[in-house]
């Protein structure tokens, strides 16, 4: 089984059709923080395909230096395709759109998953006509849809947005939220969890939340960032103490408690969708430059019942018709 470390796995199911005789395709997998549900979905999809694929799995463990070494290894191995998980891993492999190509890879097709905003992150300039040797799947719903959930709770009067300004995705999300708020006449206040060293910090996070409470925001919204996930319990306590209705774009933040609801993608489906794109490329069915970067068309409203009870804020019956409750 694939672990969070490194290894080579052979995925091939269609021996009867003589595919075994063909040279197996090698897919170089680059994880940023170990194997996630997204990669589970991807591996499952690839396993069911008729192409014999050897997976070479590497994990950067959220370490940029380690990621550089993985990129060097990929250059030497010359796989048929590279798969990356997350914005950091993808940028580490392909580099910014306008950056030099020396330290990055541009002659091997790269398929990414779980990149929140490839344009704001500087990976591509356009999702359809991107012109790069790269494609992938965006795992987050549009911010406008997130705000609709907050509106449905009747809490969209004054929204505090707490984001990670060290991540390009966070900056892009804030830009989008401000644009939507301007259009719909919502009041939005924005704070970053990044300290003076340009690193996200818990102290800074708590400080921002308290500030929002003082500003009497009607809702706190947390755009997706991996920084909050390990600190979910701490955040949970503080948010409950302050009785602040919190919404999040990250599934784990909702499941572990601080957020009472949010719109999420099925991560398993994100992985499978990335798998489909990989098969299209490896089978020669489509040119990677012509495969658009896409997001799923269906999202799930996730509601945390316990948080709702503790905050004494409840969903509408209409929202419950299409929501998942944890």
């Amino acid at each position, binding site marked *: 089984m694939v672990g969070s470390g490194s290894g080579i796995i052979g995925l091939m199911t269609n021996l009867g059709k003589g595919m075994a005789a063909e040279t197996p395709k090698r897919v170089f997998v680059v994880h940023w923080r170990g194997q996630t549900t997204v990669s589970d979905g991807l591996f499952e999809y690839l396993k069911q395909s008729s192409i014999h694929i050897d997976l070479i799995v590497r994990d950067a463990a959220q370490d940029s230096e380690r990621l550089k070494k993985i990129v060097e290894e990929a250059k030497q191995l010359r796989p048929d395709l590279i798969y990356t998980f997350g914005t950091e891993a993808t940028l580490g492999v392909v580099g910014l759109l306008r950056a030099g190509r020396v330290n990055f890879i541009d002659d091997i097709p790269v398929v990414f998953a779980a990149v929140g905003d490839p344009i704001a992150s500087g990976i591509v300039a356009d999702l359809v006509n991107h012109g790069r040797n790269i494609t992938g799947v965006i795992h987050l719903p549009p911010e406008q849809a997130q705000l609709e959930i907050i509106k449905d709770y009747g809490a969209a009067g004054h929204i505090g947005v707490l984001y990670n300004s060290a991540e390009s995705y966070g900056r892009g999300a804030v830009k989008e939220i401000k644009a939507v708020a301007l259009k719909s006449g919502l009041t939005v206040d924005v704070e970053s969890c990044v300290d003076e060293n340009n690193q996200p910090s818990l102290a800074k996070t708590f400080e921002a939340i308290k500030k929002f409470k003082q500003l009497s925001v009607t809702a706190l919204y947390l755009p997706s960032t991996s920084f909050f996930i390990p600190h979910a319990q701490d955040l949970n306590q503080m948010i409950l103490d302050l009785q602040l209705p919190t919404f999040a774009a990250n599934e784990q933040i909702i499941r572990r408690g601080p957020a009472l609801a949010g719109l999420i993608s099925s991560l398993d489906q994100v992985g499978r969708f990335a798998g489909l794109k990989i098969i299209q490329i490896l089978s020669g069915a489509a040119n990677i430059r012509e495969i658009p970067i896409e997001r799923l068309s269906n999202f799930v409203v996730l509601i945390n019942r316990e948080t709702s009870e503790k905050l004494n804020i409840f969903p*509408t*019956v209409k929202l*419950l018709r299409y929501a998942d409750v944890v």
Partner: protein
Amino acid sequence: MNKFSQFAPERITRRLLWFIVSIITIAGLSVTLTTAYIQYQALPQIVAKVELTTINKLIQQLTIGVRYGFEISKLREINYLLDEVRRDHEEIGYITLIDKSGKVLALSGNSPSADELKTLQISIDAFDIDLQDKYNFRNFGLSVVAQNDTVGQIYIGQIYVGINDNWILRLVINRFLDVATVLVVVGMISTELLMLLLDFSILAPIRAFSDWRKSTMSTENARIFTQIGFSDLRSILMVVGNIGYRNALSPEASMPWDLVLRYIRFSLFLFIFGDSICISFIPLLSSLIIGPEFGSYRSLLLTTPVAMYTLIFASVQLFAVSILYKFNHKTLLIFSAILSISGYLLSATTNSLAPFLIARSLNGAGLGLAFLTLQTAILSTAPVNKRTTAAATFTSTYFLGTFSGIVIGGIASQEIGYEYTFILAIIPMAVSALFGLIFFGSSREIKNHHQESVTQTRSSALIIKNIKFSSLVGLCAIPNRMFNTALLYYLAPLFLGSVNFTKSEIGRAVSLYGLIMALFAPIAAIYVDKWRKHELSVILGSLICALGALTLVVSPTYGVIGSIVCMGIGQALSVPSQIALVPEIASTEVKLVGLARVMSLFRLGERLPAFLAPLGAQFLIGVFGYSGAINSFSAWLFVSTVLLYFVLKASHARMHRNP
């Protein structure tokens, strides 16, 4: 001999006809009324059973939260969910959710109080609801139970639903009116057919035989007469039948003019009936074809199907004179039907704007041509001293066809959808053409060479210079026609549709105009002719038409119907009188260029600008709303009528000064 000469076949056939029609009408209405009464008794239970599915779905949605572990009383916006159900189900008067302690959790509609609801029985058998007639509703109550994975079944409370008695009544009345309308239209068509049948098999042969007998006996007739003798009834019938058969197949050749008129009238009725079938729903269909993807141009484009139809219809009048002199009536009628049928086939098979506009243009051209052909056929069939009667025949048949088509179109579009209604409309058109093909002879309009010496341009200029003629067109015919087109073809269908009138109700409302015109116009024409009060009739009719919009003050919805009724009464007075006034006020021009050209110019002037009516209506809706748009047209007609009154008065004063 005396006995035979007193024999009046017309009277006998009429009496026979009235007897048959009365029996059919009484029987039809009795069956329809009985059916309506039975429906009124049975419908609430049927409706309630249907609603049971709706309410069970609602209970499922209400209990989702409970299944997840939420307390139902804490969930938000339950009322909105109930409102949503009621919005989609007009028949539900109220829905009230009461918790197990008897407290109202949510309600929608004019619900009885919680204490009153508690007196109602809760239905145990979900398939056989206990419907209770109380508090002005047919009520039923159900238990609300949620299934929780850990706890099992959780009793939440009761939900009470009231079926709206008024809705049931409205449904029954609607159905009754639908059936009654179909009966009336079928009755009218049957009457016409019966009359034709009686003419064909009894009246024409008897008249022919009578003429033959009265005439100086030719050698051949005398020979037959002697040969068969009056005692041989079988032989008489053979002779009679033979004459009748020949007469019926070429009526214009040997039948009296009033019987020939019936053949033309039947064709006209069927053609107009077919053409009017889609009048009431074209604006609604246009709003489906022209979707939001057309952006800011949408509101303008919405008017184009009606505008195109009206424009092409009027444009055909431009070529009236040349077309009528070139082809015979039969050819023109068949060609009109081909154009209209093609239009309907295209309408039935397209969902795109461009083909739909082409289809409407084909229908406009078909109607324009048929209108010209059948009007002139009727007028030229009648003797000169009977032209008023012939014109009244045309007007009443035209509006009976319009009335029948609109109501049947409304019902048909409601029951079978737009596409099949277009296909349905093809049938009367095709029968009309077939009727023309079989029974129309070679009748046509004959050119008068003396009148042709004046060119069309010169004659038009000559006629327009006549101030009274121009005033009649500009201050009466145009505002009347514009108001008529805007209200009946655009504003009324759209407005009534926006306030949830069903398609058949819209059809019935719009068709009131045709019904009133058909009934009232011939009677009004007789008296106006008798008293020679054409000018007064034009002024009075236009004022009634304009002032009808005042009913909008009482109720915008029923005001629209009031406006239609007033328009029917007003235009029944003014429209035939306008036509009668034309030869009177343009007598010099008629002598110079002929009545056909003067009338053609009058019709063209009246109808050509009508295509702007829907565009103007759409603009006015944007500025003032529906009521404001109707008021604007009525105000225009009012002011124009007052101006016309002064123009005519001044003209009379001038005539008195310079006799």
